[in-house]
């Protein structure tokens, strides 16, 4: 086994194990920390595939910004006690069964349907470097880029409007 394969299996085991930790741990803070570890494993996969720009953006945006937001909300609500009521055993069993059934069905579809999805991921090439992605982003995808800035602005205003206190005095003109 080459170093590449060893790293692949290690990062895959880390991603799946930490994802299981997210849904199995009782404490929401521990779930957030497991999810951060999952995102770091996925970023490691991006580095293995030589997509460095997405690896860094994944760490900055997901593990940095979004997860801090989650942690902040959990701390704000004082949810770090293990007081979450559980669903019944039957519902949990049905959930695991349906998720596993979806997994098996799509794997069977990939292997049996003869889609012929073959190919090797070679980590060579400068496809995921920031120069190529920047050229593609600002030549072919300028309009979606600008639209996404409008989306961010509206999401920011929407979050502030939703999160505002309602019992503020209404000023009638």
């Amino acid at each position, binding site marked *: 086994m080459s170093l590449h394969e060893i790293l692949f299996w290690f990062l895959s085991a880390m991603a799946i194990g930490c994802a299981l930790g997210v849904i199995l741990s009782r404490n929401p803070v521990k779930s957030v920390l497991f999810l951060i570890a999952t995102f770091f494993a996925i970023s490691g996969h991006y580095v293995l595939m030589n*997509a460095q720009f997405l690896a860094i953006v994944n760490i900055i945006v997901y593990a940095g*910004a979004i997860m801090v937001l989650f942690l902040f909300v959990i701390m*704000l609500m004082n949810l770090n006690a293990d007081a979450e009521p559980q669903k019944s055993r039957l519902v949990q069993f049905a959930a695991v069964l349906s998720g596993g059934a979806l997994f098996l069905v799509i794997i069977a579809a990939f292997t049996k349907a003869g889609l012929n999805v073959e*190919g*090797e991921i070679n980590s060579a090439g400068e496809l995921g470097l920031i120069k190529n992605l920047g050229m593609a982003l600002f030549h072919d995808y300028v309009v979606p880029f600008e639209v996404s800035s409008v989306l961010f602005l509206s999401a920011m205003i929407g979050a502030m409007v939703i999160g505002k206190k309602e019992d503020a005095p209404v000023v009638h003109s």
Partner: protein
Amino acid sequence: MPIQHYIFLSLALFAIGIMGVLMRRNAIIVFMCIELMLNAVNLLMVAFSKMWGSSDAQIFVFFIMVVAAAEVAVGLAIIVMMYRKVHSVDINILNRLKH
């Protein structure tokens, strides 16, 4: 690495996310499982982009991250609002539309 390994890995992450959405009652954990599913899709898109040697899929992964960030901001605002109303983030309480 063959592409099948990446398909199985991201499919496993997606299935774990679905199990979490169906299993948990805490709205924040459900939201985190949705983020996990989005990341599984991102991983598969990057793998296919490396397989075909095209950078378009990586641009789309970038836009998925943008939309996920906006979605998290609005969704967490809704959860905070709901906690302020009912003092709980249990999704079983939010079944008033049923009655």
